[in-house]
C-alpha cells in the first residue's frame, strides 16, 4: 500500500526509507520489545557525548537500577576494548551492526563479550534490518530527529556519504566516543558490511525481477491466446528484467533512489501478481489491468479498437486505473462502423452508447449488454471446423473486451457475463445449433426478467413496508430502484416527502426530481454540500448501489459514502436497495484499488459560468491534477440494511447470499 503512495512517503522520508529497503525483516514482537531498551541504551551517551536534547522524552530515562552505573565513565573504555576486540575477532560487520539493538543496559555493563558471542545466533537477519528496526522503533519525531543528528555526527567526522543505517547504528551504540564512532562508521562504510548487504539486496532484487519477468512472460503468453506471440513474450520480458535490475540497484547505492524506484517495482509486482489468480478461477471478467504498467498498456493500445486519449496530469494515487477520456472519439468510431468485421452491430451500438454516456446505471447497462449479446447470438452461426462452445465463448469475450474499451465493466455486467459464459460452457455437445441459440436467448431473457425486473419489484415490495406516514426520505443521485420505490409508495398512498441530494458533475438527481415532481410527490432538491443541514429532518435514507461486496461494503456512485456517514452520525437508518445479482464475492476496503475515473474536464468547467475559467488551461499547469472519481465504497458500519430480492438483510449476510445462491440460482 505504502509504495503506491509516494506522496505519503515524502512526508516522512528518512525513516520510511530505512524501513522499506529491508524487505521481510523485523518480526514485530522483537521490534516492540526492543524499542524501549534501544531507547534506554541511547540515552546514557547523551550524558557524556551525545546531544542533551534527546533525553527529554520520559521514555528514554534509563531504568533506575542501572542509573548509578550509566553516568560512570569507567566502564566505557573497558567496553570499548572488548568491542574492538570483538570486532577484530569476528571480523563480521553484521555482528557489529546487529549488536547495538540487542544491547540492554545491563548486558552492556557486565557481559558484553558473552552478549556478542550470542548475537549472531540470536539474530539471523542482517544488520540493516536491525538498524532499521531501531530507527523505525523510535517513537515519533524525536526518533527521527535522533537519527538525523546521528547522521550529521557520523558524516561530519568521517565520510560525507554515511548511510542511514550506519549512522543510526553509531547513534545507538552507547559506549563509543565520537571519534571512535567515526572510525567504526568508516570501517562499516568501506568494509564488507555495506557491500555485503548491498550485494544481498541486489541479488534479492534480481531474483525478484527474474521471477516477475518469468511470471509476466507466462501471463503475456496466456494473454496472447493460442500462443501466436509466445515467442515474442520472453523477448519482451528480458528488457524488463534488465530494467528491473537497473531500477532496483540504485536504492542500495544512492539513498534518494527508492522513491523513484519503489513505485515501479511495486506496480510491476502488482501486475504480475494477478495472473495466478486468473489461473485459479477461470471465470470472466479477466483480472483488472493495472494502467501504471507501461508494457501492458502499450500492448492493450495496439489491440484496441477505440482510440483512447489519455488524460494529462494523472493523479498519483489513481495511476493504476484506466485514464481515458471518453466521449471524444465518437466520430472516429462511427467511421469504423463498417470496417469492424468481427463486431456485431448491436454490440457496437451498445459500446458507442456506453462511450457517449447515453446508457448509464448498473441495470440499464447490464440489460443493454445482454440484449446486444442476445442479438449477436441470434445472428451467430458456427464457422466450419470450429466447436460452437469454444467459438461462441471467444466471440463473447471479444465483445466484452470491446465494451471494456468503451467503458470499464460494472460489477453487475461482470456477473451477467459470467452467467452467460457458464451457460455456454454447460451446453451439451450434441445439441444442434439452432436449439443452442434459442436456449441461450431464452436464458438471457430469463436472467433479465428474474434477476433484474422481478427482483426490482420484490425489492420495492419489501422496502415500502419500511415507509411510514409522515416520513422524510432522502435519496442521493439517481437510482432506478429507489425511483420505482418512491413512485410505488406514492401510488400505494403513503404520505411522505422526499429530499433529493445531488452532486456535480453528473447532476442525475435532477432527472429524478423532475420525474417525481411530475408524479405529484413532494420533493426537496439540494446538493450534497447541504447534507449535514438537511439530515436533521430526514427519517430514512434510501440509496442504490452499483454493487455490494462480501464484507458488506457498498460500492456506489461517488458521494454515497458521504451521505451514509452523515446519516449514520444523525442516527438515521440507511437502507441500500440492491438486486442480488450485483453482489460480488470480492472484498474491498477503500475506493482506490478499484474505481473508475471520469473525464477530468467535466469538473473543471461549470456550465453556464463563463467567469469560472481558472482551470481552463489546466493541461499547462504541471502540478495540477484533477480527479473525477465515479464510485466510492461505503463501509458496512454505516449501512443499516440491505434490501435485496431475497429480503431485508443486514450487511453481514451478504456473503451468505453470495455463498448460497451463486451456485444454484445465479446460474439458474
Amino acid at each position: 500500500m505504502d509504495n503506491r503512495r509516494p506522496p505519503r512517503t515524502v512526508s516522512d522520508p528518512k525513516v520510511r526509507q530505512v524501513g522499506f529497503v529491508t524487505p521481510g525483516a523485523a518480526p514485530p514482537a522483537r521490534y516492540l520489545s526492543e524499542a524501549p531498551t534501544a531507547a534506554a541504551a541511547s540515552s546514557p551517551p547523551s550524558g557524556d557525548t551525545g546531544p542533551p536534547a534527546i533525553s527529554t522524552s520520559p521514555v528514554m530515562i534509563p531504568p533506575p537500577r542501572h542509573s548509578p552505573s550509566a553516568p560512570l565513565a569507567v566502564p566505557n573504555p573497558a567496553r570499548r576494548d572488548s568491542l574492538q576486540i570483538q570486532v577484530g575477532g569476528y571480523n563480521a560487520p553484521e555482528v557489529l551492526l546487529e549488536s547495538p539493538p540487542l544491547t540492554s543496559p545491563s548486558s552492556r555493563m557486565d557481559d558484553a563479550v558473552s552478549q556478542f558471542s550470542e548475537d549472531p545466533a540470536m539474530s539471523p537477519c542482517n544488520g540493516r534490518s536491525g538498524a532499521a528496526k531501531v530507527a523505525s522503533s523510535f517513537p515519533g519525531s524525536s526518533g527521527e530527529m535522533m537519527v538525523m543528528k546521528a547522521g550529521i555526527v557520523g558524516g561530519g567526522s568521517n565520510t560525507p556519504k554515511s548511510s542511514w543505517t550506519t549512522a543510526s547504528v553509531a547513534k545507538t551504540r552507547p559506549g563509543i566516543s565520537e571519534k571512535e564512532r567515526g572510525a567504526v562508521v568508516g570501517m562499516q562504510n568501506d568494509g564488507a558490511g555495506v557491500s555485503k548487504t548491498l550485494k544481498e539486496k541486489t541479488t534479492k532484487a534480481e531474483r525478484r525481477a527474474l521471477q516477475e519477468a518469468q511470471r509476466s512472460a507466462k501471463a503475456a503468453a496466456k494473454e496472447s491466446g493460442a500462443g501466436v506471440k509466445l515467442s515474442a513474450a520472453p523477448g519482451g520480458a528480458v528488457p524488463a528484467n534488465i530494467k528491473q535490475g537497473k531500477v532496483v540497484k540504485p536504492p542500495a547505492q544512492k539513498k534518494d533512489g527508492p522513491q523513484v524506484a519503489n513505485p515501479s517495482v511495486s506496480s510491476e509486482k502488482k501486475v504480475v501478481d494477478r495472473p495466478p489468480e486468473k489461473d485459479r478461477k477461470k471465470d470472466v471478467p479477466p483480472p483488472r489491468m493495472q494502467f501504471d504498467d507501461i508494457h501492458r498498456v502499450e500492448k492493450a493500445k495496439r489491440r484496441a479498437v477505440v482510440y483512447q486519449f489519455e488524460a494529462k496530469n494523472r493523479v498519483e494515487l489513481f495511476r493504476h486505473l484506466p485514464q481515458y477520456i471518453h466521449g471524444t472519439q465518437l466520430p472516429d468510431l462511427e467511421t469504423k462502423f463498417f470496417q469492424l468485421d468481427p463486431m456485431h452491430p448491436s454490440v457496437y451500438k451498445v459500446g458507442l452508447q456506453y462511450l457517449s454516456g447515453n446508457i448509464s446505471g448498473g441495470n440499464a447497462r447490464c440489460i443493454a449488454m445482454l440484449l446486444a449479446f442476445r442479438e449477436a447470438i441470434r445472428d451467430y452461426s458456427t464457422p466450419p471446423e470450429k466447436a460452437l462452445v469454444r467459438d461462441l465463448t471467444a466471440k463473447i469475450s471479444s465483445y466484452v473486451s470491446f465494451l471494456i474499451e468503451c467503458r470499464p465493466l460494472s460489477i453487475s455486467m461482470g456477473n451477467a457475463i459470467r452467467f452467460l459464459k457458464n451457460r455456454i460452457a454447460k451446453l451439451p455437445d450434441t445439441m444442434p445449433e439452432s436449439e443452442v441459440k434459442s436456449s441461450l436467448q431464452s436464458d438471457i431473457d430469463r436472467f433479465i426478467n428474474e434477476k433484474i425486473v422481478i427482483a426490482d419489484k420484490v425489492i420495492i415490495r419489501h422496502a415500502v413496508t419500511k415507509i411510514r406516514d409522515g416520513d422524510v426520505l432522502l435519496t442521493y443521485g439517481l437510482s432506478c430502484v429507489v425511483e420505482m420505490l418512491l413512485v410505488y409508495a406514492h401510488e400505494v398512498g403513503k404520505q411522505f416527502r422526499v429530499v433529493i441530494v445531488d452532486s456535480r458533475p453528473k447532476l442525475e438527481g435532477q432527472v429524478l426530481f423532475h420525474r417525481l415532481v411530475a408524479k405529484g410527490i413532494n420533493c426537496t432538491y439540494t446538493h450534497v454540500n447541504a447534507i449535514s443541514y438537511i439530515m436533521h429532518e430526514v427519517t430514512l435514507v434510501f440509496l442504490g448501489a452499483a454493487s455490494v461486496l462480501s464484507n458488506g461494503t457498498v460500492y456506489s456512485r461517488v458521494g454515497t459514502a458521504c451521505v451514509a456517514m452523515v446519516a449514520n452520525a444523525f442516527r438515521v437508518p440507511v437502507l441500500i436497495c440492491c438486486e442480488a445479482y450485483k453482489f460480488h464475492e470480492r472484498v474491498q476496503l477503500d475506493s482506490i484499488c478499484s474505481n473508475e475515473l471520469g473525464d477530468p474536464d467535466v469538473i473543471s468547467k461549470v456550465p453556464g459560468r463563463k467567469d469560472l475559467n481558472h482551470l481552463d488551461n489546466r493541461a499547462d499547469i504541471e502540478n495540477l491534477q484533477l480527479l473525477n472519481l465515479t464510485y466510492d465504497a461505503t463501509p458496512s458500519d454505516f449501512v443499516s440494511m440491505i434490501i435485496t430480492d431475497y429480503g431485508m438483510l443486514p450487511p453481514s449476510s451478504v456473503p451468505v447470499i453470495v455463498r448460497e445462491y451463486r451456485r444454484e440460482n445465479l446460474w439458474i
Partner: protein
Amino acid sequence: MWGRSASFLLDKRLRDQHPSLSSPSSSSPDSTMDLNPNPNHGVSAYYQTRAEHHAIVSSDWLAQAQAAVDREDDTALTERPHASAAVSLSASKPFSVIDEFNYWRKKPDLAEAVAAIMALAAVIRSCEATTMMELEIELKKASDTLKSWDTTSISLSAGCDLFMRYVTRTSAVEYEDFHAAKLRLIERGEKFGEISMKARRTIAMLGQDFVFDGCTILVHGFSRVVLEVLKLAASNRKLFRIFCTEGRPDKTGLRLSKELAALGVPVKLLIDSAVAYAMDEVDMVFVGADGVVESGGIINMMGTYQTALVAHSMNKPVYVAAESYKFARLYPLDQKDLEPALHPIDFGVPIPSGVEVETSARDYTPPQYLTLLFTDLGVLTPSVVSDELIQLYL
C-alpha cells in the same frame, strides 16, 4: 385505555361490567384489520398468556383469578369460534384454529410457537383435503387467521411460518401417497412440542458453560429458557449469584426470584431503574427473547434495551437465550418499527387527566449490544441469525 381507567385491574372490572364494550370487536374476529380481536382489548394476547402462565401473586393475578371464576373468558372463547364460523366461508366446519390454539396455549409449559404448530397440526388432521395443494391452501388460511388473531406475538407468527415452510418443503418432495405425507406432517407437528422441550435442554447445556463459579448474573424478565440454564448451572454445583430486576409491570422478577430461591441460589431483587447502579458488580447479563429478528437483534420485554446499553457501556457480556423457532423474518430499524404490543400499567394511583402513559410492553435491542445468543442451533453471534434464517426460509 388509560383515559377510561387508571389501572389494569379497574380496566378489567370495567370491561366485565360492560361486556358490550368488547363484544363488537369479538364478533368480527376474522376482520384482519382489527389489531386484537380478543376480548381483552388493548392488552396483547401474548402478554395475557404470559401473565396467566407466570401467575404472579399480585393484584393482577387476583383479578385474573376472579375473572376465571366468572368464566368470563370462557364465554368469550366459545363465542369467538361461533362468530368466526358464521362469517367464514366454510360455515359447515365446526373446527377453529384459534380454538385449538387457545387450548394449547393454556398449557403452562408450552411456548406460544409450539401451541401454534399444534393448532396447525390439528388443522391438518381435521381437514378433508385430498391433494397437497388443497391442504396447503387450507393451512395457509389457518395460519393467516392465527397470525391476524394476535399480530403482536412474534413467536406465534414465527411458529406458523416455520410450520408452513416445513409443509411446503415436504410437498416439494414427491410423495407417492398423499396420506403418508399428511401423517408425516401431523407427526411432525406433534413432535414439535418435544422438540421445543429438547431445545430448551440443549440451550441449558450450552448456556451453563458460561456460568462460572463466583459470578454475578443480572437477569431481566422471566424466561423459561434462562431459568432452565440457571437451574442446570445450579444443579451442576456452580456457585453464582443472581440479580433480578423487578420487571414492572408484570413483576417477572418476583416470580423468577421465587423459583431461584427454591433452588438455593442467592438472589437479589433490584428495581428496574437500579440496573446501572448494580452493573459494576455484574459479570454477565442473561435475557430471554420474545423474538429474534433478522439483524440478530432481539425483541424482548421492556427494559432489555436499556439493560443491554448499560452492560455494553460497561463492557459486560449480554447473553440471550432463545429457541430457534423464535427467529423471525422481521427487520425493525428502530423502536417504532415494531407492531406495538400494548400492556396497561398499574401505577397504583390514579393518573392525572391529560397525562399520557407509554404502554408498550417490549422493545428492540439492536445486535451491536448483544454478545452471544444461546440457541438450540448452537452458540451464535448475532450476525449468524440472518444466516440461519436465510437457510431456513429461502
